């Protein structure tokens, strides 16, 4: 997601389109990118640390973006025999 204060012309265009469809109360749209990442971690803390690290190193550019995430635990895949 773009940082607050950084102009988001894509979001503005979508907001304008929504208002023209009759959603007159739409005040703002901010655009961003959704990534779904499947990975293994020992526990929730380790998963949190890993995602924070991924965001810091690659997924978000702190100059212009902020990242947030949700973790959804899945059962560990069965060991291949």
């Amino acid at each position, binding site marked *: 997601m773009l940082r607050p204060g950084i102009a988001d012309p894509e979001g503005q265009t979508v907001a304008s389109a929504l208002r023209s469809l009759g959603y007159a109360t739409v005040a703002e749209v901010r655009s961003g990118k959704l990534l779904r990442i499947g990975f293994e971690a020992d526990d929730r803390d380790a998963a949190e640390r890993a995602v924070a690290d991924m965001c810091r190193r690659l997924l978000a*550019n702190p100059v212009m973006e902020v990242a947030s995430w949700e973790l959804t635990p899945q059962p560990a895949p069965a060991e291949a025999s």
Partner: protein
Amino acid sequence: MTTLVAAPPRIAVVVFPGTWSERDFAHVAGAVLGWEANLVWHTETDLGHPDAVVLPGGFAHGDHLRTGAIARFSPVMRAITDFAAAGGPVIGSCNGFQVLTEAGILPGALLRNDHLEFRCDWQSLRVERPAACPAWLGDLADGELIRLPISHGEGRYVADAATLDALEADGRVVLRYADEGGEVTDAANPNGSARGIAGIVNERGNVLGLMPHPERAAEEEVGGTDGLRLFRSLQEWLNEQPAAAERRL
């Protein structure tokens, strides 16, 4: 009797998957100027001892995630970072500028044009304090107006106010979008860049990032030769560098 003749400049033109301006840079350096231009694939770790490094325009790694975000991790970037840290001249044009900001070699970032359109056009640019970047702009004058093509969808330069103030205070904003009278106006700004910024240099002054394409304005047939003056600046600068001259003898 042996006569030593200085070899022509040698430039390394970096090619990522999706780069598209490398052959134009190589054409200008090679066919127009008679220099040695070597294309360097992004997985290389050795630049081949160039006098200067070019990061050309295009869509490195498909511009996926963000422009320049993946390219920044290409193996060749380590060598470029070292080359720049040693004072070697580096130019990043268009996508190359985006790569340099993602790599943290230049401050700020480049975002989607404010009007959301891809813009391909000739653009007037005001040169400011070119002495801050002698290797690439030494042949240009402060306040001079030049014309170069632009060709980008994501050229809106952004940085926080403190960074912008520091860039201006240090004289590191060297190119701004201007109208034909040389005025920096909103109407002349093709992408919504902060303060009309089209090009900046690093603190040391050896790394130039700019959205316009100097390599597309190097022959009269294509409509202008102002871009050639960046190449000429480099040649003159190299001639004044004892180390470079020695290496090329």
